[in-house]
Protein backbone atom coordinates (compact mmCIF):
# COMPACT_ATOMS: atom_id res chain seq x y z
CA UNK A 1 0.00 0.00 0.00
CA UNK A 2 0.84 3.65 -0.30
CA UNK A 3 2.31 4.05 3.18
CA UNK A 4 5.20 1.66 2.78
CA UNK A 5 7.81 4.14 1.60
CA UNK A 6 9.63 5.83 4.44
CA UNK A 7 9.12 9.60 4.33
CA UNK A 8 12.57 10.29 5.63
CA UNK A 9 14.49 8.26 3.09
CA UNK A 10 12.34 9.65 0.28
CA UNK A 11 13.02 13.24 1.35
CA UNK A 12 16.71 12.53 1.61
CA UNK A 13 16.75 10.97 -1.83
CA UNK A 14 14.93 13.91 -3.36
CA UNK A 15 17.20 16.42 -1.65
CA UNK A 16 20.25 14.51 -2.87
CA UNK A 17 18.78 14.52 -6.35
CA UNK A 18 18.38 18.32 -6.15
CA UNK A 19 22.00 18.68 -5.05
CA UNK A 20 23.09 16.35 -7.82
CA UNK A 21 21.29 18.56 -10.31
CA UNK A 22 23.08 21.61 -8.88
CA UNK A 23 26.29 19.70 -9.44
CA UNK A 24 25.11 18.87 -12.92
CA UNK A 25 24.68 22.55 -13.74
CA UNK A 26 28.39 22.98 -13.02
CA UNK A 27 29.20 19.74 -14.80
CA UNK A 28 27.58 21.28 -17.86
CA UNK A 29 30.59 23.59 -18.14
CA UNK A 30 33.01 20.80 -19.11
CA UNK A 31 30.24 18.90 -20.90
CA UNK A 32 29.50 21.98 -23.01
CA UNK A 33 33.16 22.36 -23.80
CA UNK A 34 33.55 18.77 -24.92
CA UNK A 35 30.33 18.99 -26.91
CA UNK A 36 31.78 22.04 -28.64
CA UNK A 37 35.07 20.29 -29.29
CA UNK A 38 33.16 17.42 -30.82
CA UNK A 39 31.44 19.96 -33.03
CA UNK A 40 27.94 19.26 -31.71
CA UNK A 41 26.98 22.59 -30.26
CA UNK A 42 29.53 25.12 -31.36
CA UNK A 43 32.81 24.53 -33.09
CA UNK A 44 34.08 28.09 -33.23
CA UNK A 45 35.94 27.65 -30.00
CA UNK A 46 38.90 25.48 -29.06
CA UNK A 47 39.48 22.98 -26.31
CA UNK A 48 40.32 25.18 -23.36
CA UNK A 49 41.67 22.57 -21.06
CA UNK A 50 44.28 22.21 -23.75
CA UNK A 51 44.26 25.40 -25.80
CA UNK A 52 47.26 24.24 -27.77
CA UNK A 53 45.65 21.01 -28.86
CA UNK A 54 45.91 22.25 -32.40
CA UNK A 55 49.14 24.12 -31.88
CA UNK A 56 52.09 21.82 -32.24
CA UNK A 57 55.53 23.21 -32.78
CA UNK A 58 56.78 19.86 -33.98
CA UNK A 59 54.29 19.28 -36.74
CA UNK A 60 56.20 17.40 -39.38
CA UNK A 61 54.96 18.98 -42.55
CA UNK A 62 57.20 16.99 -44.82
CA UNK A 63 54.67 14.20 -44.71
CA UNK A 64 51.69 16.43 -45.29
CA UNK A 65 50.69 16.29 -48.87
CA UNK A 66 50.29 19.78 -50.31
CA UNK A 67 47.23 19.72 -52.52
CA UNK A 68 48.47 21.87 -55.39
CA UNK A 69 45.27 21.37 -57.35
CA UNK A 70 43.25 23.41 -54.90
CA UNK A 71 43.27 27.03 -53.76
CA UNK A 72 41.72 28.32 -50.59
CA UNK A 73 41.48 31.85 -49.27
CA UNK A 74 42.29 32.37 -45.61
CA UNK A 75 41.11 35.71 -44.19
CA UNK A 76 42.49 37.27 -41.04
CA UNK A 77 40.26 39.25 -38.75
CA UNK A 78 41.41 41.20 -35.71
CA UNK A 79 39.17 42.75 -33.08
CA UNK A 80 39.63 44.30 -29.67
CA UNK A 81 36.90 43.88 -27.11
CA UNK A 82 35.23 46.76 -25.31
CA UNK A 83 37.79 49.14 -23.84
CA UNK A 84 40.95 47.26 -24.82
CA UNK A 85 43.30 50.15 -25.66
CA UNK A 86 45.42 48.31 -28.21
CA UNK A 87 45.60 48.73 -31.94
CA UNK A 88 45.44 45.25 -33.36
CA UNK A 89 45.57 44.40 -37.03
CA UNK A 90 46.73 41.63 -39.33
CA UNK A 91 49.54 42.67 -41.68
CA UNK A 92 47.79 40.84 -44.50
CA UNK A 93 44.03 40.77 -44.75
CA UNK A 94 44.04 37.44 -46.57
CA UNK A 95 46.26 34.88 -48.25
CA UNK A 96 45.66 32.40 -51.06
CA UNK A 97 47.19 29.06 -50.21
CA UNK A 98 47.03 25.38 -51.04
CA UNK A 99 45.74 22.95 -48.41
CA UNK A 100 48.69 21.38 -46.62
CA UNK A 101 50.92 24.37 -47.17
CA UNK A 102 52.64 25.84 -44.09
CA UNK A 103 51.86 29.56 -43.86
CA UNK A 104 53.17 32.35 -41.68
CA UNK A 105 51.29 35.58 -40.96
CA UNK A 106 51.96 38.39 -38.52
CA UNK A 107 49.55 40.50 -36.52
CA UNK A 108 50.65 43.99 -35.47
CA UNK A 109 49.86 45.05 -31.93
CA UNK A 110 50.30 48.52 -30.42
CA UNK A 111 49.63 49.52 -26.85
CA UNK A 112 48.35 53.11 -27.16
CA UNK A 113 48.38 53.96 -23.47
CA UNK A 114 50.90 55.19 -20.94
CA UNK A 115 50.37 52.16 -18.75
CA UNK A 116 51.38 48.53 -18.98
CA UNK A 117 48.43 46.50 -20.24
CA UNK A 118 47.76 42.79 -20.34
CA UNK A 119 45.63 41.11 -22.97
CA UNK A 120 44.47 37.66 -23.94
CA UNK A 121 43.50 36.80 -27.50
CA UNK A 122 40.62 34.44 -28.19
CA UNK A 123 40.56 32.66 -31.55
CA UNK A 124 37.44 31.85 -33.55
CA UNK A 125 36.81 30.43 -36.99
CA UNK A 126 34.34 30.94 -39.79
CA UNK A 127 32.84 28.67 -40.96
CA UNK A 128 32.70 26.97 -37.59
CA UNK A 129 33.72 23.57 -38.92
CA UNK A 130 37.07 24.97 -40.10
CA UNK A 131 38.47 24.56 -36.60
CA UNK A 132 38.94 20.86 -37.26
CA UNK A 133 41.14 21.47 -40.32
CA UNK A 134 43.13 24.42 -39.06
CA UNK A 135 46.37 23.27 -37.45
CA UNK A 136 48.52 25.92 -35.82
CA UNK A 137 52.25 25.48 -35.35
CA UNK A 138 52.70 28.82 -33.61
CA UNK A 139 50.06 31.01 -32.00
CA UNK A 140 49.81 33.82 -29.49
CA UNK A 141 46.29 33.04 -28.32
CA UNK A 142 45.23 32.16 -24.76
CA UNK A 143 48.51 33.34 -23.30
CA UNK A 144 48.68 36.57 -21.35
CA UNK A 145 50.47 39.11 -23.50
CA UNK A 146 52.04 41.96 -21.53
CA UNK A 147 52.63 45.16 -23.45
CA UNK A 148 54.75 48.02 -22.08
CA UNK A 149 53.44 51.58 -22.57
CA UNK A 150 53.37 52.41 -26.30
CA UNK A 151 55.06 49.15 -27.20
CA UNK A 152 54.77 47.86 -30.78
CA UNK A 153 55.03 44.14 -31.42
CA UNK A 154 54.46 41.69 -34.24
CA UNK A 155 52.73 38.49 -33.19
CA UNK A 156 53.14 35.55 -35.59
CA UNK A 157 50.77 32.72 -36.41
CA UNK A 158 52.04 29.70 -38.32
CA UNK A 159 49.44 27.27 -39.57
CA UNK A 160 48.50 24.52 -41.98
CA UNK A 161 45.05 23.90 -43.38
CA UNK A 162 44.81 20.14 -43.72
CA UNK A 163 44.02 18.75 -47.17
CA UNK A 164 40.96 16.86 -45.93
CA UNK A 165 39.10 20.18 -45.74
CA UNK A 166 35.66 19.56 -47.30
CA UNK A 167 35.63 20.36 -50.99
CA UNK A 168 32.93 23.02 -50.81
CA UNK A 169 34.87 25.17 -48.35
CA UNK A 170 37.11 27.60 -50.16
CA UNK A 171 37.19 30.54 -47.77
CA UNK A 172 38.17 30.31 -44.12
CA UNK A 173 38.37 33.14 -41.65
CA UNK A 174 40.67 33.14 -38.66
CA UNK A 175 39.62 35.69 -36.07
CA UNK A 176 41.36 36.90 -32.95
CA UNK A 177 39.77 39.14 -30.37
CA UNK A 178 41.99 40.72 -27.73
CA UNK A 179 40.41 41.11 -24.28
CA UNK A 180 41.99 43.21 -21.57
CA UNK A 181 42.63 41.18 -18.40
CA UNK A 182 43.98 41.98 -14.97
CA UNK A 183 47.70 41.35 -14.66
Amino acid sequence: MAMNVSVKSLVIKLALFAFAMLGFSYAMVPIYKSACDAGWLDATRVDLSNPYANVNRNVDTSNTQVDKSRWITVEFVASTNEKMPWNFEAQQKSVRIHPGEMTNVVYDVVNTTDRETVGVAVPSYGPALAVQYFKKVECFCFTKQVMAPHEHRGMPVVFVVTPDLPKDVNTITLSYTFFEVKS
Partner: protein
Amino acid sequence: MMSNLIKKIGGGLALAMYSMLAQAEYAINFPKPVTVIAGQIYDLHMITMWIIVGIAVVVYGAMFYSILKHRKSVGHKAANFHHNTMIEIVWTTIPLLILIGMAYPATKSVLAMRDSSNPDMTVKITGYQWKWEYDYQQEGFKFMSVLSTPRDQFELKGTAAKNENYLLEVDNPMVVPVGKKVRILLTANDVIHAWWVPTFGIKQDAIPGFIKDSWFKADKAGTYRGQCAELCGKDHGYMPIVVEVKEQADYDKWVAEQKSKSAAATQDTNKVYELAELKSIGEKVYATNCAGCHQAKGEGMAPVFPALDGSKMVKGPKQAQIDIVMNGKAGTAMSAFGKQLSDTDVAAVITYTRNAWGNHTGEAIQPSEIKASRK
Protein backbone atom coordinates in the same frame (compact mmCIF):
# COMPACT_ATOMS: atom_id res chain seq x y z
CA MET B 1 -26.18 57.83 -23.86
CA MET B 2 -24.68 54.35 -23.60
CA SER B 3 -25.89 53.39 -27.06
CA ASN B 4 -24.48 56.63 -28.39
CA LEU B 5 -21.09 55.72 -26.99
CA ILE B 6 -21.31 52.26 -28.48
CA LYS B 7 -22.18 53.79 -31.85
CA LYS B 8 -19.19 56.08 -31.64
CA ILE B 9 -16.80 53.31 -30.68
CA GLY B 10 -18.28 51.01 -33.31
CA GLY B 11 -17.96 53.74 -35.91
CA GLY B 12 -14.38 54.36 -34.90
CA LEU B 13 -13.55 50.66 -35.12
CA ALA B 14 -15.24 50.34 -38.50
CA LEU B 15 -13.24 53.32 -39.75
CA ALA B 16 -10.04 51.82 -38.40
CA MET B 17 -10.81 48.52 -40.14
CA TYR B 18 -11.54 50.35 -43.36
CA SER B 19 -8.32 52.34 -43.21
CA MET B 20 -6.44 49.10 -42.59
CA LEU B 21 -7.97 47.50 -45.67
CA ALA B 22 -7.31 50.64 -47.65
CA GLN B 23 -3.61 50.43 -46.94
CA ALA B 24 -2.98 47.85 -49.62
CA GLU B 25 0.53 46.99 -48.46
CA TYR B 26 -0.50 46.63 -44.86
CA ALA B 27 1.75 43.98 -43.43
CA ILE B 28 0.24 40.87 -41.91
CA ASN B 29 2.83 38.54 -43.33
CA PHE B 30 6.56 38.42 -43.92
CA PRO B 31 7.84 41.30 -46.08
CA LYS B 32 8.38 40.53 -49.75
CA PRO B 33 11.55 38.42 -49.97
CA VAL B 34 14.52 39.63 -52.04
CA THR B 35 16.76 36.60 -51.56
CA VAL B 36 16.23 32.95 -52.44
CA ILE B 37 16.48 32.01 -48.77
CA ALA B 38 13.90 34.56 -47.66
CA GLY B 39 11.68 33.22 -50.43
CA GLN B 40 12.09 29.66 -49.11
CA ILE B 41 11.27 30.87 -45.61
CA TYR B 42 8.18 32.63 -46.93
CA ASP B 43 7.00 29.46 -48.67
CA LEU B 44 7.80 27.23 -45.68
CA HIS B 45 5.78 29.50 -43.46
CA MET B 46 2.86 29.45 -45.89
CA ILE B 47 2.92 25.63 -46.14
CA THR B 48 3.03 25.34 -42.36
CA MET B 49 0.21 27.85 -41.99
CA TRP B 50 -2.04 25.99 -44.44
CA ILE B 51 -1.41 22.68 -42.69
CA ILE B 52 -2.28 24.39 -39.42
CA VAL B 53 -5.43 25.90 -40.89
CA GLY B 54 -6.45 22.43 -42.04
CA ILE B 55 -5.88 20.90 -38.61
CA ALA B 56 -7.59 23.87 -36.96
CA VAL B 57 -10.72 23.41 -39.09
CA VAL B 58 -10.99 19.77 -37.96
CA VAL B 59 -10.18 20.45 -34.28
CA TYR B 60 -12.29 23.57 -33.84
CA GLY B 61 -15.03 22.09 -36.02
CA ALA B 62 -15.36 19.09 -33.71
CA MET B 63 -15.12 21.28 -30.65
CA PHE B 64 -17.78 23.79 -31.67
CA TYR B 65 -20.07 21.12 -33.05
CA SER B 66 -19.86 19.42 -29.69
CA ILE B 67 -20.41 22.70 -27.82
CA LEU B 68 -23.53 23.40 -29.91
CA LYS B 69 -25.08 19.94 -30.00
CA HIS B 70 -23.89 18.14 -26.90
CA ARG B 71 -25.16 20.56 -24.30
CA LYS B 72 -27.53 19.95 -21.47
CA SER B 73 -29.74 22.89 -22.48
CA VAL B 74 -30.70 21.15 -25.75
CA GLY B 75 -31.42 18.00 -23.77
CA HIS B 76 -28.39 15.98 -24.86
CA LYS B 77 -27.77 12.98 -22.61
CA ALA B 78 -24.17 12.22 -21.70
CA ALA B 79 -22.61 9.11 -23.18
CA ASN B 80 -20.23 7.14 -20.98
CA PHE B 81 -17.32 6.09 -23.23
CA HIS B 82 -13.86 6.92 -21.98
CA HIS B 83 -11.42 5.37 -24.35
CA ASN B 84 -11.01 3.93 -27.80
CA THR B 85 -7.63 2.45 -28.60
CA MET B 86 -8.10 2.59 -32.35
CA ILE B 87 -8.87 6.29 -32.51
CA GLU B 88 -6.08 7.08 -30.06
CA ILE B 89 -3.56 5.32 -32.29
CA VAL B 90 -4.93 7.18 -35.31
CA TRP B 91 -4.65 10.61 -33.78
CA THR B 92 -1.12 9.90 -32.60
CA THR B 93 0.06 8.57 -35.94
CA ILE B 94 -1.47 11.12 -38.30
CA PRO B 95 0.16 14.17 -36.65
CA LEU B 96 3.45 12.27 -36.67
CA LEU B 97 3.17 11.71 -40.43
CA ILE B 98 2.23 15.36 -41.02
CA LEU B 99 5.26 16.48 -39.02
CA ILE B 100 7.57 14.23 -41.00
CA GLY B 101 6.11 15.76 -44.15
CA MET B 102 6.86 19.23 -42.81
CA ALA B 103 10.37 18.36 -41.70
CA TYR B 104 11.47 17.41 -45.21
CA PRO B 105 11.30 20.85 -46.91
CA ALA B 106 12.46 22.50 -43.67
CA THR B 107 15.61 20.36 -43.65
CA LYS B 108 16.35 21.28 -47.26
CA SER B 109 16.08 24.98 -46.43
CA VAL B 110 18.29 24.68 -43.37
CA LEU B 111 21.00 23.04 -45.45
CA ALA B 112 20.71 25.78 -48.10
CA MET B 113 20.79 28.66 -45.67
CA ARG B 114 23.81 27.39 -43.78
CA ASP B 115 25.92 26.96 -46.90
CA SER B 116 28.22 29.97 -46.80
CA SER B 117 30.75 28.51 -49.23
CA ASN B 118 31.96 30.24 -52.41
CA PRO B 119 31.23 33.83 -51.43
CA ASP B 120 31.91 36.73 -53.82
CA MET B 121 32.88 39.07 -51.02
CA THR B 122 33.17 39.23 -47.22
CA VAL B 123 32.13 42.02 -44.87
CA LYS B 124 32.92 41.94 -41.18
CA ILE B 125 30.12 43.38 -39.06
CA THR B 126 30.66 44.32 -35.43
CA GLY B 127 27.85 45.18 -33.02
CA TYR B 128 28.54 47.95 -30.54
CA GLN B 129 26.24 49.39 -27.87
CA TRP B 130 24.40 50.80 -29.90
CA LYS B 131 25.62 50.94 -33.48
CA TRP B 132 27.02 48.71 -36.19
CA GLU B 133 30.46 48.76 -37.78
CA TYR B 134 30.92 47.52 -41.34
CA ASP B 135 34.47 46.54 -42.19
CA TYR B 136 35.16 45.95 -45.89
CA GLN B 137 38.44 44.28 -45.13
CA GLN B 138 39.41 43.41 -48.69
CA GLU B 139 38.75 46.97 -49.85
CA GLY B 140 40.51 48.47 -46.86
CA PHE B 141 37.90 50.73 -45.32
CA LYS B 142 35.40 50.55 -42.51
CA PHE B 143 32.74 52.80 -41.07
CA MET B 144 30.23 53.14 -38.28
CA SER B 145 26.54 53.05 -39.02
CA VAL B 146 24.43 54.98 -36.53
CA LEU B 147 20.74 55.86 -36.28
CA SER B 148 20.15 59.11 -38.19
CA THR B 149 16.61 59.93 -37.07
CA PRO B 150 16.92 63.33 -35.34
CA ARG B 151 16.65 63.04 -31.56
CA ASP B 152 13.78 65.48 -31.25
CA GLN B 153 11.61 62.96 -33.13
CA PHE B 154 11.98 60.17 -30.60
CA GLU B 155 13.08 61.73 -27.34
CA LEU B 156 10.75 61.77 -24.39
CA LYS B 157 8.41 64.71 -24.98
CA GLY B 158 9.93 65.17 -28.45
CA THR B 159 7.36 66.84 -30.66
CA ALA B 160 8.96 66.95 -34.11
CA ALA B 161 7.05 65.23 -36.94
CA LYS B 162 8.42 61.75 -37.60
CA ASN B 163 10.31 60.81 -40.78
CA GLU B 164 8.91 58.19 -43.12
CA ASN B 165 11.63 55.74 -42.05
CA TYR B 166 11.50 56.73 -38.41
CA LEU B 167 14.03 54.66 -36.40
CA LEU B 168 14.93 52.64 -39.51
CA GLU B 169 17.43 55.08 -41.04
CA VAL B 170 21.19 55.37 -40.57
CA ASP B 171 23.92 57.84 -41.49
CA ASN B 172 26.11 55.31 -43.36
CA PRO B 173 24.27 52.31 -44.79
CA MET B 174 25.96 49.05 -45.68
CA VAL B 175 26.27 48.85 -49.48
CA VAL B 176 26.53 45.62 -51.48
CA PRO B 177 26.33 44.73 -55.17
CA VAL B 178 23.20 43.06 -56.51
CA GLY B 179 23.30 39.33 -57.29
CA LYS B 180 26.56 38.71 -55.42
CA LYS B 181 26.92 36.25 -52.58
CA VAL B 182 27.93 38.38 -49.62
CA ARG B 183 29.42 36.51 -46.70
CA ILE B 184 29.14 38.32 -43.40
CA LEU B 185 31.29 37.71 -40.36
CA LEU B 186 29.55 38.80 -37.22
CA THR B 187 31.05 39.65 -33.90
CA ALA B 188 30.34 42.10 -31.11
CA ASN B 189 32.39 44.50 -29.08
CA ASP B 190 30.58 44.38 -25.75
CA VAL B 191 27.35 42.39 -25.39
CA ILE B 192 25.38 40.08 -27.68
CA HIS B 193 23.59 41.75 -30.58
CA ALA B 194 21.78 40.20 -33.54
CA TRP B 195 21.97 41.37 -37.14
CA TRP B 196 18.62 40.98 -38.83
CA VAL B 197 17.31 42.02 -42.23
CA PRO B 198 13.83 40.45 -42.72
CA THR B 199 13.74 40.80 -46.51
CA PHE B 200 17.01 38.82 -46.73
CA GLY B 201 15.82 36.07 -44.37
CA ILE B 202 18.96 36.41 -42.28
CA LYS B 203 19.31 36.78 -38.55
CA GLN B 204 22.54 35.98 -36.77
CA ASP B 205 23.64 36.71 -33.23
CA ALA B 206 26.85 38.69 -32.83
CA ILE B 207 28.81 37.36 -29.87
CA PRO B 208 31.80 39.10 -28.28
CA GLY B 209 35.02 37.14 -28.81
CA PHE B 210 33.59 34.84 -31.47
CA ILE B 211 32.84 35.21 -35.14
CA LYS B 212 29.76 33.69 -36.70
CA ASP B 213 29.38 33.58 -40.45
CA SER B 214 26.28 33.89 -42.50
CA TRP B 215 25.48 35.09 -46.00
CA PHE B 216 22.95 36.63 -48.34
CA LYS B 217 22.56 37.24 -52.04
CA ALA B 218 20.13 40.04 -52.83
CA ASP B 219 18.44 39.62 -56.18
CA LYS B 220 17.03 43.10 -56.50
CA ALA B 221 18.59 46.54 -56.10
CA GLY B 222 16.99 48.69 -53.46
CA THR B 223 17.19 49.80 -49.85
CA TYR B 224 16.41 47.19 -47.21
CA ARG B 225 15.97 47.79 -43.51
CA GLY B 226 16.28 45.76 -40.35
CA GLN B 227 17.00 46.08 -36.65
CA CYS B 228 19.07 44.62 -33.87
CA ALA B 229 17.18 41.56 -32.65
CA GLU B 230 18.83 40.73 -29.33
CA LEU B 231 18.31 42.85 -26.24
CA CYS B 232 21.60 44.74 -25.86
CA GLY B 233 20.84 47.38 -23.27
CA LYS B 234 19.36 50.85 -23.10
CA ASP B 235 19.27 51.74 -26.80
CA HIS B 236 18.56 48.28 -28.20
CA GLY B 237 15.60 49.78 -30.06
CA TYR B 238 17.79 52.42 -31.69
CA MET B 239 20.37 50.50 -33.70
CA PRO B 240 18.78 49.88 -37.10
CA ILE B 241 20.39 48.22 -40.08
CA VAL B 242 20.14 49.65 -43.57
CA VAL B 243 21.52 47.78 -46.57
CA GLU B 244 21.63 49.40 -49.98
CA VAL B 245 21.82 46.89 -52.80
CA LYS B 246 23.31 48.56 -55.88
CA GLU B 247 24.12 47.60 -59.45
CA GLN B 248 27.77 46.53 -59.78
CA ALA B 249 28.82 49.79 -61.48
CA ASP B 250 27.21 51.91 -58.76
CA TYR B 251 28.73 49.72 -56.12
CA ASP B 252 32.21 50.14 -57.62
CA LYS B 253 31.69 53.89 -57.62
CA TRP B 254 30.68 53.77 -53.98
CA VAL B 255 33.76 51.73 -53.08
CA ALA B 256 35.99 54.26 -54.82
CA GLU B 257 34.33 57.08 -52.90
CA GLN B 258 34.79 55.30 -49.61
CA LYS B 259 38.44 54.68 -50.35
CA SER B 260 39.15 58.31 -51.16
CA LYS B 261 37.16 59.37 -48.12
CA SER B 262 39.21 57.22 -45.80
CA ALA B 263 42.41 58.45 -47.45
CA ALA B 264 41.24 62.04 -46.98
CA ALA B 265 40.51 61.37 -43.33
CA THR B 266 44.10 60.24 -42.80
CA GLN B 267 45.51 63.37 -44.42
CA ASP B 268 43.02 65.53 -42.57
CA THR B 269 44.73 64.68 -39.31
CA ASN B 270 47.50 67.16 -40.11
CA LYS B 271 45.15 70.05 -40.74
CA VAL B 272 44.82 72.75 -38.08
CA TYR B 273 41.22 73.80 -37.46
CA GLU B 274 39.62 76.96 -36.12
CA LEU B 275 37.69 76.63 -32.86
CA ALA B 276 34.35 77.45 -34.51
CA GLU B 277 34.93 74.86 -37.22
CA LEU B 278 35.71 72.15 -34.68
CA LYS B 279 32.67 73.10 -32.62
CA SER B 280 30.32 72.77 -35.54
CA ILE B 281 31.70 69.33 -36.54
CA GLY B 282 31.71 68.33 -32.87
CA GLU B 283 28.09 69.26 -32.36
CA LYS B 284 27.03 66.72 -35.01
CA VAL B 285 29.32 64.03 -33.64
CA TYR B 286 27.94 64.71 -30.17
CA ALA B 287 24.33 64.40 -31.33
CA THR B 288 25.02 61.02 -32.94
CA ASN B 289 27.30 59.44 -30.38
CA CYS B 290 26.95 61.12 -27.01
CA ALA B 291 23.52 62.70 -26.61
CA GLY B 292 21.85 59.32 -26.02
CA CYS B 293 23.38 59.16 -22.55
CA HIS B 294 24.83 62.59 -21.72
CA GLN B 295 21.74 64.28 -23.25
CA ALA B 296 21.54 67.06 -25.81
CA LYS B 297 22.19 69.83 -23.31
CA GLY B 298 24.96 67.96 -21.49
CA GLU B 299 22.84 67.51 -18.37
CA GLY B 300 23.34 63.72 -18.25
CA MET B 301 21.00 61.26 -16.53
CA ALA B 302 21.87 60.79 -12.88
CA PRO B 303 23.12 58.55 -11.40
CA VAL B 304 24.36 56.44 -14.31
CA PHE B 305 25.31 59.01 -16.95
CA PRO B 306 27.15 62.04 -15.52
CA ALA B 307 26.47 65.60 -16.69
CA LEU B 308 29.10 67.15 -18.98
CA ASP B 309 27.83 70.68 -18.51
CA GLY B 310 29.93 72.09 -15.70
CA SER B 311 31.78 68.78 -15.28
CA LYS B 312 35.19 68.94 -13.59
CA MET B 313 36.51 66.38 -16.06
CA VAL B 314 35.46 68.44 -19.08
CA LYS B 315 36.67 71.73 -17.66
CA GLY B 316 39.93 70.22 -16.36
CA PRO B 317 43.13 69.23 -18.17
CA LYS B 318 42.46 68.04 -21.72
CA GLN B 319 44.69 64.97 -21.63
CA ALA B 320 42.43 63.27 -19.09
CA GLN B 321 39.37 63.88 -21.23
CA ILE B 322 41.12 62.67 -24.37
CA ASP B 323 42.04 59.49 -22.52
CA ILE B 324 38.51 58.80 -21.33
CA VAL B 325 36.96 59.48 -24.76
CA MET B 326 39.57 57.36 -26.54
CA ASN B 327 39.66 54.42 -24.12
CA GLY B 328 36.38 54.58 -22.24
CA LYS B 329 36.02 54.18 -18.50
CA ALA B 330 36.20 50.74 -16.95
CA GLY B 331 33.15 49.59 -15.06
CA THR B 332 30.86 52.16 -16.66
CA ALA B 333 28.83 52.46 -19.82
CA MET B 334 31.39 54.89 -21.31
CA SER B 335 32.77 53.11 -24.38
CA ALA B 336 36.14 53.50 -26.05
CA PHE B 337 35.45 55.89 -28.92
CA GLY B 338 39.04 55.74 -30.12
CA LYS B 339 38.17 52.77 -32.30
CA GLN B 340 34.81 54.11 -33.41
CA LEU B 341 35.59 57.69 -34.48
CA SER B 342 38.21 59.37 -36.66
CA ASP B 343 40.87 61.62 -35.16
CA THR B 344 39.05 64.68 -36.44
CA ASP B 345 35.72 63.58 -34.95
CA VAL B 346 37.25 62.85 -31.56
CA ALA B 347 39.06 66.21 -31.56
CA ALA B 348 35.91 68.00 -32.64
CA VAL B 349 33.62 66.41 -30.10
CA ILE B 350 36.03 67.08 -27.23
CA THR B 351 36.37 70.68 -28.39
CA TYR B 352 32.61 70.95 -28.55
CA THR B 353 32.03 69.67 -25.01
CA ARG B 354 34.71 72.00 -23.67
CA ASN B 355 33.03 74.99 -25.29
CA ALA B 356 29.31 74.26 -25.17
CA TRP B 357 26.54 75.07 -22.67
CA GLY B 358 28.16 76.56 -19.54
CA ASN B 359 31.65 75.29 -20.42
CA HIS B 360 33.90 78.00 -21.86
CA THR B 361 37.48 76.77 -21.84
CA GLY B 362 38.16 78.40 -25.21
CA GLU B 363 40.47 75.46 -26.05
CA ALA B 364 40.56 73.88 -29.50
CA ILE B 365 41.78 70.28 -29.57
CA GLN B 366 43.47 69.45 -32.88
CA PRO B 367 43.24 66.07 -34.67
CA SER B 368 47.01 65.77 -34.50
CA GLU B 369 46.80 65.57 -30.72
CA ILE B 370 44.40 62.67 -31.04
CA LYS B 371 46.61 60.98 -33.58
CA ALA B 372 49.53 61.30 -31.17
CA SER B 373 47.53 59.56 -28.45
CA ARG B 374 47.12 56.52 -30.68
CA LYS B 375 50.83 55.71 -30.72
